[in-house]
């Protein structure tokens, strides 16, 4: 009929699109009991623009159709330029459905009501009267659409079977759009239909931070190496994108294929720091995944988590289906294979969890129940299903050389925190600093051979084109044969124009000369971490470096040409007194004097940064039972330092937000009741808590209060049950207790490379014979990871 009338093809296409939409919306509404004549909607919407090329096209069209004897259709065509609608869904008539459809289409494509209104407003921009009328009607129409969606129980786009609006339409309106663009070098390209397991690695912070994390590279390529698995990534959308996605009801989507995360099989979070937990809840919410494990039905993805904070998993226990404790390189593929078998076998959700609980290092919280006494004091976690172990022993990859290392890491298109490739040279640490969780839980030390490191480095540079290589470990200077390794890599770097960056070095005179060789004239800066000001307090935390060694190293460094050094300390450490704080000032002052003398005259003036963080008691450390100073007390200590240091010329003082450290301590030792607080805080708008500009302590306080949980990070009874007692880090509680006693007596426990100290791990010490001494110097770089908090 349209063609017979000579209606242009593009108008016919428009009519067909409007008709499709009107019929789908009308059909869905009819199912909910709205009385509509679907045949009428179909005919009228197909014909509504039959005379669009004529003047007054609605009337002309109606006249034509009426002449053919279709009075009701003609009425609709005549009225289709209307912009106002009834207020109630029940009152909607066929004409309204046609008009709604027409208001959501531009030419022959669906653009949604809002976009169409924008176009209209732009078109009538000159006519203020028309504009006001359009805006007023638009408000009513939006309200009606919301009511319709409520009645339908889903969005209009869902009714239309349309893909939701893409992220791309927002990219010009957000900061750093490259965060959401994907398409990086060495990203996995797989056909989602060709795999049986779609995995999503989730990093609960922004892209630039997540992409600087080596673990992401390892797990991503490890999983994509499995032919049945496609592993994609998702990061926390920054505040601006978060808002746009909510406004447009866009779900959280993967970077690789823009698939809603909810549609994938497994979502795996990394738990790098406690202050990212609100982001995890927020991301689950944005994804449309039920927040609590027990509410997840058969269609929902399994939500798993791993990383350092999984060693104290209870605050997230009810939200996570499976935790992987310890090294993931073997446990994660095992879990994936289990999933593939389970999927092929067609069991229920519980069957998979039961099987997963059998994997070494896997913790399935659903199989344990916390018990509290009548006063609400935690009494322990009781296993309630025999499929799960009494205690979950952390997973250890025995041989790091044969463990998976990516040869072609992802190369972000935008600048990230660490814009370089990185090779892990060993895992674990033998120094035994008593506050350090990583040093405790990543034992034993496992070194990669020089040949393996060199091979990885050269492969990665060849496949990425990076011009900087970083060596990673908890204490790089402790690597057996570090000088030889660095010399070789430097030769390679000179040949290939690759700079070498070595965080976590000990800076004795040998290392300094080595660094001198690396940096030459481009001396970026050094960071040195005595951690405590007085020698007594350093002994209490098991930092072996002496004052003399600190000053000797600073003199050497300044003499060799470094003009900037950063000293890193902690405040609020157990047994700390005012004298210990004043010792920080004294060390800084003397360092400054020595450095100035060593540098001599006529050179760029020497500057010193004193960076201070707040002590946070962490699970599985000898200090796990210790109280944390209140935020006010910590602030007073920082103020004391600030005052003292401000009198010394050339010193810059940096310190962390004490309330953030306070929250970190509360979450780090929390039990299962903490999740309600985190969920409430997320609901109140908390996210990116480690970012000063986003951190809302007041909202967190409200969330604690509403859930009746105390905000005091007090001392714990050494005989009491701890919420992480069921996580077996390999360390004996008796060892942690004896270390605690030695701390109180300010007694050093030697580096265990010098002899076993009986921590409980049965480690082979054959390749750890090299004697090491001195403090842990760090080369600038490793501080950057936490500098967001400074």
């Amino acid at each position: 009929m349209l063609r017979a009338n000579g209606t242009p093809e593009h108008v016919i296409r428009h009519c067909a699109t409007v008709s499709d939409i009107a019929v789908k919306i009308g059909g869905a509404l009819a199912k909910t009991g709205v009385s509509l004549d679907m045949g009428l909607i179909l005919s009228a919407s197909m014909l509504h623009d039959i005379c669009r090329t004529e003047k007054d096209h609605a009337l002309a069209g109606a006249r034509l159709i009426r002449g053919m004897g279709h009075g009701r259709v003609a009425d609709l065509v005549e009225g289709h330029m209307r912009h106002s609608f009834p207020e109630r869904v029940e009152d909607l008539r066929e004409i309204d459905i046609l008009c709604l459809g027409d208001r959501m289409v531009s030419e022959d494509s669906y653009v949604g009501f809002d976009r169409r209104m924008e176009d209209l407003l732009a078109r009538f921009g000159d006519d203020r009267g028309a504009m006001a009328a359009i805006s007023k009607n638009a408000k009513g129409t939006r309200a009606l659409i919301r009511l319709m969606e409520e009645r339908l129980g889903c969005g209009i786009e869902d009714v239309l079977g349309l893909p939701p609006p893409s992220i791309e339409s927002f990219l010009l309106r957000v900061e750093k759009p490259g965060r959401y663009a994907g398409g990086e070098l060495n990203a996995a390209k797989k056909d989602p239909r060709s795999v049986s397991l779609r995995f999503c690695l989730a990093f609960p912070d922004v892209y630039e931070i997540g992409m600087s994390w080596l673990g992401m590279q390892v797990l991503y390529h490890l999983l994509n190496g499995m032919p049945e698995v496609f592993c994609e990534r998702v990061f926390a959308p920054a505040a601006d994108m978060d808002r746009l996605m909510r406004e447009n009801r866009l779900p959280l989507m993967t970077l690789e294929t823009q698939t809603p995360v909810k549609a994938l099989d497994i979502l795996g979070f990394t738990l790098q720091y406690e202050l990212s937990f609100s982001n995890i809840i927020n991301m689950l919410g944005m994804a449309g995944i039920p927040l609590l494990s027990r509410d997840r039905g058969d269609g929902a993805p399994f939500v798993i988590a791993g990383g350092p904070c999984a060693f104290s998993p209870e605050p997230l226990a009810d939200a996570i289906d499976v935790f992987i404790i310890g090294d993931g390189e073997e446990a994660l593929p095992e879990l994936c294979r289990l999933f593939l078998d389970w999927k092929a076998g067609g069991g229920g959700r519980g069957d998979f969890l039961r099987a997963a609980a059998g994997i070494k290092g896997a913790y399935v919280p659903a199989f344990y129940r916390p018990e509290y006494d009548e006063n609400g004091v935690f009494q322990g976690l009781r296993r309630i299903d025999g499929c799960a172990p009494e205690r979950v022993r952390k997973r250890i990859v025995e041989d790091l050389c044969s463990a998976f290392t990516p040869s072609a890491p992802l190369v972000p298109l935008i600048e990230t925190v660490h814009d370089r490739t990185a090779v892990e040279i060993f895992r674990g640490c033998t120094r035994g600093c008593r506050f350090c969780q990583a040093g405790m839980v990543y034992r034993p030390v496992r070194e990669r051979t020089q040949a393996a490191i060199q091979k990885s480095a050269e492969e990665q540079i060849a496949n990425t084109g990076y011009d900087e290589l970083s060596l990673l470990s908890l204490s790089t200077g402790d690597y057996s044969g570090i000088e030889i390794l660095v010399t070789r890599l430097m030769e390679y770097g000179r040949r290939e124009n690759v700079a070498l960056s070595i965080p976590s070095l000990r800076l004795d005179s040998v290392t300094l000369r080595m660094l001198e060789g690396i940096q030459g004239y481009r001396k970026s800066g050094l960071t040195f971490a005595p951690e405590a000001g007085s020698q007594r307090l350093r002994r209490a935390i098991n930092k072996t470096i002496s004052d003399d060694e600190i000053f000797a190293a600073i003199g050497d460094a300044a003499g060799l040409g470094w003009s900037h050094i950063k000293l890193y300390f902690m405040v609020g450490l157990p047994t700390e007194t005012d004298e210990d704080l004043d010792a920080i000032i004294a060390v800084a002052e003397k360092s400054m004097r020595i450095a100035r003398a060593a540098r001599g005259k006529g050179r760029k003036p020497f500057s010193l940064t004193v960076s201070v963080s707040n002590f946070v008691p962490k699970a599985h450390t000898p200090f796990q039972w210790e109280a944390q100073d209140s935020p006010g007390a910590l602030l007073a200590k920082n103020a004391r330092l600030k005052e003292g240091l401000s009198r010394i010329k050339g010193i810059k003082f940096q310190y962390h937000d004490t309330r953030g450290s306070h929250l970190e301590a509360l979450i780090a030792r929390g039990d299962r009741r903490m999740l309600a607080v985190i969920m409430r805080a997320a609901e109140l708008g908390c996210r990116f808590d480690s970012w000063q500009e986003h951190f809302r302590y007041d909202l967190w306080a409200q969330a604690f209060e509403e859930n009746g949980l105390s905000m005091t990070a007090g001392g714990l009874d050494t005989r009491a049950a701890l919420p992480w007692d069921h996580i077996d880090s390999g360390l004996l509680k008796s060892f942690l207790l004896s270390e605690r006693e030695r701390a109180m007596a300010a007694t050093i426990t030697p580096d265990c490379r010098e002899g076993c100290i009986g921590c409980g791990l049965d480690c082979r010490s054959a390749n750890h014979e090299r004697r090491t001494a001195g403090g842990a110097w760090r080369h600038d770089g490793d501080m950057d990871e936490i500098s967001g908090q400074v």
Partner: protein
Amino acid sequence: MRYLAKFEKKGMMIYVSHLDIQRLFQRAVKRAKLDLKYSGGYSPHPRLSFAQPLSLGHYSIAEYLEFETNGGHLHPGEIEGLFNRLLPAGVRIVDAWQLQEGGKSVSSLVAAAKYRIEIPFFFSYMEATMDFFGRESIDCDKLNRKTGRTESVNIRPLILSLKPLMVNDNRIVLISSLHCGSASNLNPEQMLKSFYRCSGHAYDRGAVRIERTSLLGWSDDELVPLEHVANRI
């Protein structure tokens, strides 16, 4: 050996900033195992530069990259294939030439750029364009990079041409040539903002598509695409 390569920036790559594109090419060169020449001095930098930065979010079919290698003869015809294997989707070399040794950098030859700007349709767009282009002066706030202060500048002399075309009921295309380069430069977004202000409409960056279609330099008294101005062999 000096080379000039012309490339496009499309798709998701428009969201990658100029500095990140520089890094991207530096890494591509490294992977291509090209023996790139480095500057001397304490902090050596690869001799690889771009004719003109492109704003974030702009498309382009006419970007230029200049680089220098140590000896070895690379045929310009090989450059396209060599790079395109290594570049992400959205950045593609479309042509390459060898340049004479020495001589001016290509960036110093840029004088103007031509843009294709798509904006939402509005009635009276023709009059609005004529009124805007017909003005003797158009004052607009511009950041002076040297002083760091915002100053009122007459941008009208920087607009060489402006022609509207209607594509369909929804879109209008403006074809415009603007001053470009280190001597005198006008960002098309700045021009567009002024245009919207003068015509009384609200400017929505999200509804606009900007594409650079050529970079031009002076040849005698005619503006021609950059490859015709550069000292090609």
